[in-house]
Structures are given as structure tokens and as C-alpha cells.
């Protein structure tokens, strides 16, 4: 018996890549997780209601509590989120639902995780106002810019049994955040590599409703960029990609 068998190499590293001094690295990954860095990020939505890993427990009387929600994924079809088209954010978004942790020392943290496999297919996809997996299989293309939509209310069930997300109509507060390092990596079903993104100092708020601020140890970021600002941001992303291609 010859025990030597064909071995499929896993976890092929794509090389270390530093972005904006954030120390982020690109890896070949099956799981892409987004989580609030413990105790470092505070998110204020509409009137200063606060979520922080340091003290928020959803069962307390804090208004935001269990109503904090997040989706992590990407906008499709070249859609650019703005305040005026907020009601269409979900209709042009593919990703997964995140949640607010309730147990252990990380209670109150925002977290979301995408497990992707062959063909960049993702587990438990959500899109538009449908429920999890209601739209069948979904995928996120390689190198897609990833975003998190964060809002301070749970879904509102609509008459068809789905969920409605329309911040403009319902008066919810919401924000779209991203980070130049949040790029969908190449994935494979048998890959066990995980890549953790952080909702931290590198996070950029693209668009939001209400008085939304992201605070990270004193760093406050503007949330509602004018179109020109957004254009600059996207140009910045393009230059980052160009640098990376030259490096690879």
C-alpha cells in the first residue's frame, strides 16, 4: 500500500499587501468575516445612540439594542449608494446578514461573515428585501469592493412575507461603510483560510441618513460625502488596485 496520495494545496497565499498603513493582508480565503474591533469602534446613529463593545448589552434599555442590524456584501451592477437612492440599497446589494453579539465578553459587537466556495458562491445569501437564501444561489465576484450597510432598526415584514428596507420611507437611520481593504478574495470550497476584516480606523462612511458618525478613539469620519467626495474615494480605490497589480 502506498499511502502517498495526491494532495491539493490549500491556503495559497496571494502575498502580503499593505493598504493605507492599515496592515491588511490579502489571502486566498473561504471565509470573509467583518467584525467590530473590540472596544475600538463606536457607532452613532441618529441622535447619538451608541453601540460599543465596552458596555452595550442588548437586553439593557439602550434604544439601539437588539435593533442594530447589518448586511455585509457588495453592490451590484455599478450601483452607487447615496442618500437619495437609499430605498434601493438592498435591491442592488448581495451579501449576508450580520448580527449584534449577545453573549460572552464580546456582547454588543457587530459581526458578519461570508463563507464562499467554488465560483465565489456564498452561503446564506440575502438580496433585495428577501429572506435568507430566498433568491437562490448568489456569488460575489473576485476583488469586488465590499460594503456594510448598518441601520438601527430591524426589518419590517411586508405583506408578501419578506422584509422591507426603506430608510427614507420609514425614517430609519442607516449608513454605508467600506474600507479600501475590504476586497472579496478568491475562494474555493475546500479552502479553510479565513480572513478577518475590521470595522475600525480604516473604515470609511460613504453615505448615511440622519446624523451618523463613526467614532474610533477620537477619529470622527464624515458620513455624507458629496458626490465629488465619493468620486475621489472611488478614484482612490482605483489607484490602490493599480498599485497592487504592479506589485503582483
Amino acid at each position: 500500500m502506498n499511502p502517498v496520495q495526491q494532495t491539493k494545496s490549500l491556503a495559497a497565499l496571494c502575498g502580503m499587501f499593505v493598504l493605507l498603513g492599515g496592515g491588511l493582508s490579502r489571502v486566498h480565503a473561504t471565509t470573509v468575516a467583518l467584525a467590530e474591533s473590540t472596544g475600538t469602534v463606536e457607532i452613532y446613529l441618529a441622535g447619538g445612540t451608541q453601540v460599543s463593545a465596552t458596555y452595550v448589552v442588548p437586553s439593557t434599555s439602550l434604544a439601539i439594542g437588539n435593533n442594530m442590524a447589518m448586511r455585509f456584501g457588495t453592490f451590484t451592477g455599478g450601483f452607487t449608494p447615496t442618500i437619495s437612492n437609499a430605498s434601493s440599497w438592498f435591491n442592488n446589494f448581495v451579501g449576508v446578514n450580520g448580527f449584534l453579539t449577545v453573549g460572552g465578553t464580546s456582547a454588543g459587537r457587530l459581526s458578519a461573515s461570508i463563507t464562499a466556495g467554488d465560483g465565489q458562491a456564498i452561503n446564506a445569501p440575502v438580496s433585495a428585501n428577501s429572506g435568507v437564501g430566498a433568491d437562490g444561489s448568489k456569488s460575489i465576484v473576485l476583488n469586488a469592493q465590499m460594503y456594510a450597510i448598518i441601520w438601527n432598526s430591524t426589518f419590517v415584514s411586508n405583506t408578501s412575507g419578506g422584509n422591507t428596507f426603506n430608510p427614507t420611507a420609514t425614517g430609519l437611520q442607516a449608513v454605508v461603510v467600506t474600507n479600501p481593504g475590504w476586497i472579496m478574495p478568491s475562494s474555493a470550497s475546500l479552502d479553510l483560510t479565513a480572513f478577518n476584516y475590521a470595522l475600525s480606523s480604516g473604515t470609511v462612511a460613504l453615505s448615511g441618513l440622519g446624523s451618523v458618525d463613526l467614532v474610533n478613539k477620537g477619529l470622527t469620519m464624515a458620513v455624507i460625502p458629496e458626490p465629488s467626495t465619493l468620486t475621489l474615494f472611488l478614484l482612490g480605490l482605483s489607484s490602490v488596485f493599480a498599485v497592487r497589480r504592479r506589485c503582483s
Partner: protein
Amino acid sequence: MLSEEGEIKKNMKKTNLLAVLTLAATPAFLHAQTTSYSEIVGYQNTDLPSTGYKGVGISLLNPSLVSGSVSAKSSAVITVSGASTIGSLLQTGQPYYVEVTSTNSPSGNRFDVDVVATKVSNNGTITLDPNSVRNTASAASTDLVGSTIVLRKHVTLDQIRASITGTLVGNDDSPTYADAVYVFRGAGFVPYWLGADLQSWWSNDDPDDHRFDVIAPGQGILFRKRGSQGTLVSTGVVRNNDFLSVLGVGYQLNAPGYPKGYTPVQLGGALNNGWNVNSQILVYSGTGFTINTLTSDGTSVGAWDNGVDPDPVNDVVLVGGDNSFMTKLSSPVVDLETKPFSN
């Protein structure tokens, strides 16, 4: 040629899986049964290295709580002949299942139990959960009258934690810093990791504590130990009936039904058993998956090719009784493995 019983004992010895093998009469007070039998009990030691992943398949079972023949069935409620106060044997919040042990159809099928309903009834009936995705057949429509069944508690993440010797490592933030169990679901591997209190199990799916999540019969896992190496000491009962495995399309992470070594053919991998050409069996070797592919050689079984050896590996033991293995199929297969020993 070894007898089947001899073969399993040989494999047990070869893989050092079952260090203790005894025949033990199960306590009578735990059973409301009409048929008496002894269960084969033992344990498996599975080393969990401090780095990398380890394929784990738990083939030993929790002791039976009830066994007997089904005298009646109404929708998803079965009546076990001679049994009473079954509900009092169940703990709220813990998962249980019924497995068909008789050799007539539907032999080997498994059905999860509606614990709440069974406890409320607390008589000689068991209410099956018709909505459980782990059921291997329809709990509502499968005719179980006349079949013999056994009721057992599922293996849970909490049980796995309690079975590990060595220093546990927990973290509330990420599987990166904690002992973790990986299951394969949908597109890829999904982690559950031990919390900082060394009791809770967290997941990226939701904020819930998953300590009582089920590692179902036939479901394989990968274990990622952190810090220092440990040993998973799995204790339990050897299945005393045919083992049913339901293999879906695409990748699936599986566990053996018995604590013995398996060749690819013994895992059911044969053309005349519903497996197609190019079906694969993949075994985690510590650094990656070794891939074995079923090819056509003109025989009814086919030839298993590991991509290295010039000869087929049909008779090579690929999977130990405490290991997990992946299958990759283009069409689903339901396989009933005959019990590899005799009482």
C-alpha cells in the same frame, strides 16, 4: 479471507481506535424495551494537534434510552411497545433522535425527536420532529409500525468539549483564537468556536450559544485545536444495526458509521452502488485533502485512482473509524451499510 467480524476487529486493532471492547448489559431501568440486547461499548482516542486541522468522525453513539418495536404510528407520533414515561428520560434543550434498527425497510433511517412534545406526553410515545433537516426520511409518512427502533441522545458540541483532554482555548471574538469545530455547509467550511468561558460555542451565523448543536450520525467535522495539543476521547456504543448514509450532490463532509477502517469501496463507492464516474472521496491529511477519484475500468465497481499509484486503491484503507471524509458527487446516493459484525 476474514469474516466480517474478524475484519472489523482487525481494523480496530490496526487503527488503535477501540482500546476497550466490552459487552455490557445496558441498565434495565433506562429501558422500556421488549427486546433485550447487549451493547458494545468502548472509546476512541483521537489526537488533536496544536497546529492545523484534524479530520474527526465520531462513530460511537450515546447509550440507548429506549429500544423496542413500534406498535402504532399516528402522523409523527410513534408508540413503543411496552414503553412508558419516555418523556422523563429526556432533558429539555438536549437533542435526541430515533434510529430504525430492524433490517426490514426502513432500516437505518433516523428521525429527530420533538423533545417538548415527547416530554409533555410522557407516556409510551415518542413525537418525531417532521421538520428536522437531519431526518433521513419523512417522519410523517414513513411507515414505522413493526420496526424496531432505538432512542439516543445526539452528540453535541458540548459533548465534544467535555470529551477533550488537554487545555481548552476559548475566545468570544473569533475562531482564530479558540478551539474550533468546522462543519461543511453549502459553499464551504463554517466554524463554531469555544467561548471564553470554555462552555459556550459561538458561530458567525447568529449571536446564539450553539453548545447543544448536533453533530449528527454520519456528519464529519474538522477540529482546529489552539494552544497545545489535546486528545478527543470519544466514548460510547458501537452501532448494532445497518448504517444509512445520505450523500448529497457536491461536497459533503461525512463520518463513518462504525469504528473501523474503510476502503473507498467499503464506503459505498462503486459504480454499481449509484456512484458516478469522477465521484471523489477526499480525506484531510493535515495539510490538505487527498483526492481519490472513481474511474471506469470496465468493471461494475470501477477503479479508485489516487492520482499517484498506478494501481487502483479499491482495497486500500483510506478512512479510519475516527476520521472524517468528504464526498463529491454529481448525483445523490443513499447507501445502507450492512453491520460489519454479528452479535
